[in-house]
């Protein structure tokens, strides 16, 4: 390992012309050869771009395709070196509508750069190891910034010669590509003026950088036009002649979707993209998710026209059905005219035709309702909206609503005497979004065009809507699906706009209602919210990532907005889970964690406890907290808490009492550790809102539940009577309506969602890519084939089976009562939450 640093150092001094020899990864890809360190994230590098002195950090955080910052097992941010393209982006792209002057073809922000097309040329001037200052044209997507580097792009005002050189060079590259990979018709279009939204990026580049009428200036090779096509797939057409081997599709398939189907095959002029072991696409393991098509900058990969039409119709039908409102479809071209959508690939919008709908609202009409789940967001086009946060949720848990039983029900003993007993047949809803048990306030806010977007929180955090939105004047919005939001996250500018809106909405709507402040007066709460909003940080933590570690000295306090965290403690080498914490539920009370270290650090002696006797060092974490799923936290500095407490003596006293009792509980807890909790947490049961649980002591294995399911859903069962066992209970394989459903992440066509209530629904426009089935950690989504016509002619008709994802919607589509539970003759099937199961298991366990 000692050599690693040496290697890094040596690479630093490799000249630009030598780069091609060395800048290759183990897999043969051209990559940045230098690793970045954590310190580089804070290290300034002084450069000059187009005559503007500019400081950039030597490294930037590594992000996944959705822009989420990646961290290692220790919770540290993974850095990656800053490239010239990154730096130019930082200088030129500040707001929606700004453009980076560097043209790119093989590179995209959400993909690992490979530097194969060399279209992203800039001129650099840098001092080499020899001491000589040298100028060179380099590819900006892979070349790293260095101290003192002078960069000239094609946007430079005072270097016209260099600008010409760059433009000419780019022109040569794209025309060479065009001669080989564009058709006669394409070239005619280029010459006669191109549609500015033409999905073929090569054509657009040729139109911009090519030389006048003589495009292209070069003769194609003998092989051009003879590489062939692969039309085997029902969804995607492959035209090898149009392929420029930029590898955007292979990176999309392997790095983003992790399907590992695509690669490059062959050498020289014979080189082409291939599926599996160079099989026809249909015979390969391609899942037809379409990621390669939307990534392809040319016409090499396209959706079949019939598929686009069919899909468009289905999506439109669904959009209208789910929102119950009429609207006009916004076409791909119209969408691309709106600055925030300009980074979304045309092919994606085209494939999802019908997904974006323009809605006109009259005053008083509501967009969405608090407490309901939703899978669409609203881009404000005009008008004004009133936001009512914290109002009572509309769809209160059916479980807790008591209906007066009828005479026969009472006579036959079919009623529950206790009104608060949750209904086991339906499971219980968890009530308010993310914040159970918090005070309900009626706070009115207004939003308009300057707020860009509404309703994005429910899509991105997969939780219930946190506010009711009502139009207060004639207004217009564009309703977009979660999949469109995901696409917006791939591009830094639109991601920043989204993040900003999300942060503002999340902090505004929740801080004031956080359970920890429920002891304050309304005015005190408003003041507390003001203090916190000023400096608090909205953090998003990915599953498995540590928030803080046992033994660490830190005194921030965290409030859980959504998701669950695991509190664990190490005993020697053994780690044991002490508890899991959800919003508003730490130690049953405050929705916050990290309080012991925070309060002991700020109040120390004021607490009047003997730390030595408790064997505790103030300000030190007593356990490790890590995210169990997608967790959102508000990080509050202990000084902020102190400021709030000092202004409210009553509140301070309550905090001190709480700190004492927490410290006491914490020391006592040592003796009560059990392994039961670990199992419960490891199996993700805390996340379940509606488990199908079978009592194996009563279950006679008659399969009536499975048969009822199959009979009710066109002969296909959506449950499997197999799964984990807890004491005498079996958790069957059937959707559990997770509080944070992983399956909802990444559906390319937004066909899996929940709308209104907690059940997960999969609509008919599912393209069967299997992403949701892969995402569900409990195997509760099944891919089922449906015959959709035939392939072939005459006697050679082969049935075409379209896979579709299927999951249990708790019979929402047929009236709402889960037939499995309804049909069980032995009263052995129940729907219950994870907590209810834990309670049932504990009540059976001999104490």
């Amino acid at each position, binding site marked *: 390992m000692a050599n690693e640093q040496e290697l890094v150092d040596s690479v630093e001094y490799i000249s630009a012309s030598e780069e091609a020899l060395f800048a290759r990864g183990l897999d043969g890809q051209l990559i940045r050869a230098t690793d970045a360190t954590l310190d580089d994230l804070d290290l300034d590098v002084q450069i000059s771009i187009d005559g503007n002195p500019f400081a950039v950090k030597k490294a930037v955080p590594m992000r996944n395709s959705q822009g989420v910052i990646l961290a290692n097992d220790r919770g540290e941010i993974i850095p990656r070196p800053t490239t010239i393209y990154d730096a130019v982006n930082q200088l030129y792209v500040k707001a929606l509508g700004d453009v980076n002057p560097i043209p790119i073809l093989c590179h995209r922000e959400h993909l690992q750069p490979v530097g194969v097309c060399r279209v992203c040329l800039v001129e650099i001037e840098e001092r080499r190891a020899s001491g000589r200052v040298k100028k060179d044209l380099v590819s900006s997507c892979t070349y790293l910034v260095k101290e003192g580097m002078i960069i000239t792009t094609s946007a430079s005002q005072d270097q016209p010669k260099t600008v010409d050189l760059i433009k000419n060079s780019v022109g040569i590259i794209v025309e060479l590509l065009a001669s080989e990979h564009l058709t006669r018709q394409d070239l005619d279009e280029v010459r006669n003026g191109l549609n500015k939204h033409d999905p073929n990026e090569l054509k657009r580049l040729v139109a911009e950088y090519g030389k006048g009428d003589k495009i292209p200036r070069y003769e194609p090779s003998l092989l051009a036009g003879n590489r062939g096509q692969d039309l085997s*797939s*029902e969804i995607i057409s492959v035209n090898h002649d149009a392929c420029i081997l930029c590898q955007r599709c292979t990176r999309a398939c392997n790095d983003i979707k992790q399907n590992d189907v695509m690669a490059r095959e062959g050498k020289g002029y014979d080189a082409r993209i291939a599926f599996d072991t160079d099989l026809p696409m*249909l*015979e*390969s*393991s*391609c*899942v*037809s998710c379409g990621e390669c098509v939307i990534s392809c900058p040319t016409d090499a990969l396209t959706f079949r026209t019939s598929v686009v039409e069919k899909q468009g119709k289905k999506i439109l039908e669904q959009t209208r059905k789910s929102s119950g409102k009429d609207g006009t479809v916004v076409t791909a071209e119209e969408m691309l005219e709106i600055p925030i959508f300009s980074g979304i690939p045309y092919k994606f919008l085209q494939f999802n035709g019908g997904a974006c709908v323009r809605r006109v609202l009259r005053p008083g009409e509501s967009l969405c309702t608090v407490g309901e789940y939703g899978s669409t967001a609203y881009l404000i086009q005009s008008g004004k909206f009133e936001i009512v946060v914290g109002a009572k949720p509309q769809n209160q848990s059916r479980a807790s609503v008591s209906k007066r039983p009828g005479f026969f029900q009472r006579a*036959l*003993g*079919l009623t*529950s005497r206790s009104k608060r*007993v949750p209904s*086991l047949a339906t499971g219980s809803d968890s009530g308010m979004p993310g914040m159970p048990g918090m005070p309900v306030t009626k706070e009115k806010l207004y939003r308009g065009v300057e707020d860009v977007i509404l309703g994005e929180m429910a899509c991105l955090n997969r939780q219930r809507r946190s506010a009711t939105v009502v139009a207060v004047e004639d207004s217009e919005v564009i309703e977009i699906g979660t999949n469109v939001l995901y696409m917006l996250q791939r591009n830094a500018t639109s991601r920043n706009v989204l993040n900003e809106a999300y942060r503002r909405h999340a902090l505004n709507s929740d801080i004031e209602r956080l359970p920890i402040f429920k002891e304050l007066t309304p005015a005190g709460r408003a003041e507390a919210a003001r203090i916190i909003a000023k400096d608090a940080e909205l953090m998003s933590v990915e599953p498995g990532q540590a928030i803080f570690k046992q033994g660490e000295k830190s005194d921030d306090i965290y409030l859980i907005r959504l998701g669950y965290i695991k509190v664990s403690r190490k005993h020697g080498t053994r780690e044991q889970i002490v508890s899991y914490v959800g919003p508003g539920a730490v130690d049953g009370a405050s929705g916050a964690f990290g309080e012991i270290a925070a309060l002991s650090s700020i109040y120390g002696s004021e607490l009047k406890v003997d730390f030595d006797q408790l064997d505790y060092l103030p300000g030190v974490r007593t356990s490790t907290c890590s995210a169990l799923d997608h967790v959102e936290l508000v990080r509050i500095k202990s000084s902020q808490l102190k400021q709030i407490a000092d202004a409210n003596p009553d509140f301070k006293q309550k905090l001190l009492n709480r700190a004492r009792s927490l410290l006491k509980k914490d020391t006592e807890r040592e003796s009560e550790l059990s392994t039961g909790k670990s199992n419960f947490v490891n199996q993700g049961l805390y996340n379940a809102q509606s488990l199908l649980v079978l*009592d*194996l002591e*009563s279950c*006679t*294995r*008659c*399969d*009536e539940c499975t*048969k*009822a399911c199959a*009979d*009710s859903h066109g002969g296909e069962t959506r449950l*499997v009577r*197999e799964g984990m*066992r807890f004491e*005498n209970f079996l958790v069957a394989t059937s959707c559990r309506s997770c509080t944070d459903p992983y399956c909802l992440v990444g559906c390319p066509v937004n066909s899996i969602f929940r709308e209104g209530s907690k059940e997960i629904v999969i609509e008919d426009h599912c*393209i*069967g*890519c*299997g992403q949701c*089935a*892969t995402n569900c950690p409990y*195997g509760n989504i099944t*891919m089922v*084939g449906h015959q*959709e016509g035939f392939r072939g002619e005459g006697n050679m008709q*082969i049935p*075409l*089976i*379209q*896979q*579709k994802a299927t999951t249990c919607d708790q019979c929402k589509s*047929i*009236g709402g*009562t889960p*037939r499995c539970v*309804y*049909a*069980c*003759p*032995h*009263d052995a099937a*129940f729907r219950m939450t994870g907590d209810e199961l834990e*309670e*049932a298991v504990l009540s059976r366990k001999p104490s």
Partner: protein
Amino acid sequence: MLLVRKIRIHVGPILLAVILIVGTAAWQRWASRSFGANVSGSSLPGLVAGSIAAAIIFFELLLWPRKRLRRFKLFPTKFWLSAHLWLGLATGPLALIHSGYRFGGTFSTALMCLLFFVLASGIYGWMMQIVIPKWMLGNLPFETIGSQIDDVSIQNALDARRMLTVAFGPKPSGLTKLANLDEISAKMRGSSMVRDQDGRVSQIVVGAIQRRGDSRSLLEMENVEMEFNSLDGKEVWRQYASVVEPFLLRGIPLSMENTSARSNRLSPLRTPLKTDDWFGLLRESCSLNAVPVLESLKELCEQRHQFNAQRRANAFLHGWIAIHAGVSVMLGILLLTHIVLALKYL
């Protein structure tokens, strides 16, 4: 909480059954007293008791169509079953009250006997359904879905082959031929082109194919890191091919030329005890390094024993239903005849 809930389901039907029995018995007794002799079916209380019993019997028969109509919300089935149980039990005493505690002629005696046989078979079944699930819960931790036993066994055999290949290399030639599971395993893995036996494409599948996860086999991949010796390999493969796999696939019809998977009553692994002894002997003939592999194989065999026991338990659990349902239908027919005859001679 669950227990309370479960008891509550039965309260209504039990109450109703008791009210019916006690009410009609008291009425019959009162009528007998006033009449001076034991009144039977032709008396008003007797007729009422008989009519109730008949109505209950026909209601009992409705359980079958109710189960077939699962997709409709016709009142939760558990209430039907609870009523079936308790009201069904009430038919015995009601029939006796109806008959004035006498058997009567040949026909009514036959009817009464049939009724008690139906009741007895029902009670037997009920007991089975109380006892056997508890026994299965305690004794069959590897229990799987009854209809999936064959699939899981095939998957186990495939897993075992993979483990031996990883540990000792491919099966040496000259040993007993293994059953051809390629076709089955290809089906289990899924493929976008389904081909028939002649290799012709019979289906084109578009989209992702569900991949089955590994079965619940106990194969530990740590085994891979151990050093195995080739003599062990040869012996383990030999025993696997000739004894273990045929036992794992026992009774599964495989449409292959190879017959090693046929039912094998004389397998040295046929009981758990014999399995234990046999693996003990095999362990002695191998080196210590092979022990983890042998343990995994043994656990697969134990799983298979449990599957066999599960099949037997399932037979006890559900076997009686055919008899109970059969005689119930007969009872229904005889009852109809009894009613027609009774009305005729009224």
